[in-house]
């Protein structure tokens, strides 16, 4: 049997379905950072929420890994789950904040960015976009994600 590091994503997923937790570790080594990054972007820079979203993504991979149908790549599948989780968390968060404070939700920029003003403006501009368009922008500018892969994640044609 090949080592987890050398196995393909599909092989890792098959091993995971058969109960091999090292396969999950290998998948996490490949994609966890990227997933946290896109989740952070989608959740307005909230690292804690991004961690929760990615953790929930792994939970779903563990539970539903056996149902993966190989119609798309494992990578886009993982991103699709993460994006869906972020949408769910974001809408839940907004509802809760609207109910508690009655104010519109305001996201804050990441603390470690050098140009705070530009990032703040960008974040506000992104926030003003509809959910779907915001996701498209963030996925397209996400490092390591091609436009084709972004289209696959969102299940829309390239160039939409």
């Amino acid at each position, binding site marked *: 049997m090949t080592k987890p590091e050398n196995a393909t994503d599909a092989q890792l997923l098959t091993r995971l379905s058969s109960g091999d937790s090292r396969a999950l*570790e290998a*998948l996490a080594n490949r994609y*966890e*950072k990227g997933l946290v990054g896109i989740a952070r972007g989608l959740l307005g820079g909230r*690292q804690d929420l991004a961690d929760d979203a990615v953790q*929930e993504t792994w939970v779903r991979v563990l539970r*539903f890994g056996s149902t993966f149908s190989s119609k798309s790549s494992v990578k886009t599948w993982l991103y699709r789950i993460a994006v869906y989780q972020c949408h769910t968390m974001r809408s839940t968060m907004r509802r809760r904040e609207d109910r508690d404070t009655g104010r519109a939700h305001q996201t804050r920029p990441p603390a470690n960015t050098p140009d705070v003003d530009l990032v703040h403006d960008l974040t506000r501009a992104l926030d003003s976009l509809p959910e779907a368009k915001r996701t498209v922008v963030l996925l397209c*500018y996400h490092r390591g994600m091609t436009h084709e892969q972004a289209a696959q994640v969102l299940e829309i044609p390239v160039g939409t």
Partner: protein
Amino acid sequence: MSNTSANSIEEHLAKLTEPAASTGDLWKKALAVVSTGPQTKKGPTRWKRPEWLRTVHPLMAAMLVIVVGAALMAILMPSLERQRLPSAVGSNGIPSFTRADVERGMVAAPNSGGSPFGGRSAFETPGLVSAEPSSAQGEYEYGFSEGSAAPADMTRSRRMHQEQTPAADLQETAGPVERAVVRKATMELKTDDVRSTFLKASMAIREAGGEYIQDSSLTGEGQHAQANLTLRVAAGRLPEVLRELRELGEVDSERVTGDDVTAQMVDIDARLRNERRIEQELLGLLEARDDSPLTEILELRTQIGYVRRNIEQLQAQQQQLGRLVSLATVLVIIRHDQTKAADGIWTYFKASIVDAWSYGLGFLADSVAWIVTVVVGGLVWWIIAGIAFLIAWHTYKKKSG
């Protein structure tokens, strides 16, 4: 916007989703969550599919639900059908009775707690509507001169009765009415000796009780012999006569029908009573107007004649119906038993194949009818089940990414 600032925006956009080190090994936490279950998380506990259910594919589960639904419908629909049709009703709207019905009295009302007409008002019976005499209007017109007191009284009286009859009279008498049913039975018999069976069947009647042979014929000889016999037997003795006839040979077919004429009887009775009342009134007028002109008296007599003619016609109809009800008609057809004469394996084989073919076609028709019933009858449920399945499938796909 300059190229530099555009590049800067792109860089910052990329930084917004820049891959970053997480606060910990999220996959390990996920493993812990899955191994301990969702109850370790705060908040409401979500329903977790049991292990045995996880092995069942959603499509298989959906198919199972559909099959169980179809089976339930197949079980429930015939019972609902029976509920809707408490008694077998013929194509002409008249209940048809089976041999069992006859043997247990045949005339028992299916819903004795309701209308005496078996849950259907006598006034809705098509036959009753047409029973209104078409010539009545013509007969009710009187040719008296204007200003005459007698015709005015008579016309008023006649109109009053016209308004009352027949519905008003029927309503008055629509209490506990005994049902009147004209019973008819047809029996086909196979026997080795047609002639002797014919004679024995003829002896099933009791002439002393008013029963008689309405028609009889015996044709052919040997294996081609056939006898037809129409018996008129007392309605109460019909089950007994049928039992006797069954013992005379092998019963090829048997059919018993009942034609409910209660409504007609009630209608005739009401009209008869109405005509008698009119007759009494006309007679009263005739006696009270001795000094009236001769033409008016003659006119009154003519009208009394019309009314009496109506009464006689109605009485004849009543008697005719009474005879039909009191005497059941039994048609007996006796044939030679061909199967016994030409007994052999080949004949048996052919007959079996023919029977099997007929039975198969019948079963095929029943199956197609059942499928059509389930598909068309349960269309609403199929649509609901389909939508539910689509929603469940969509939710499942979303959850699994």
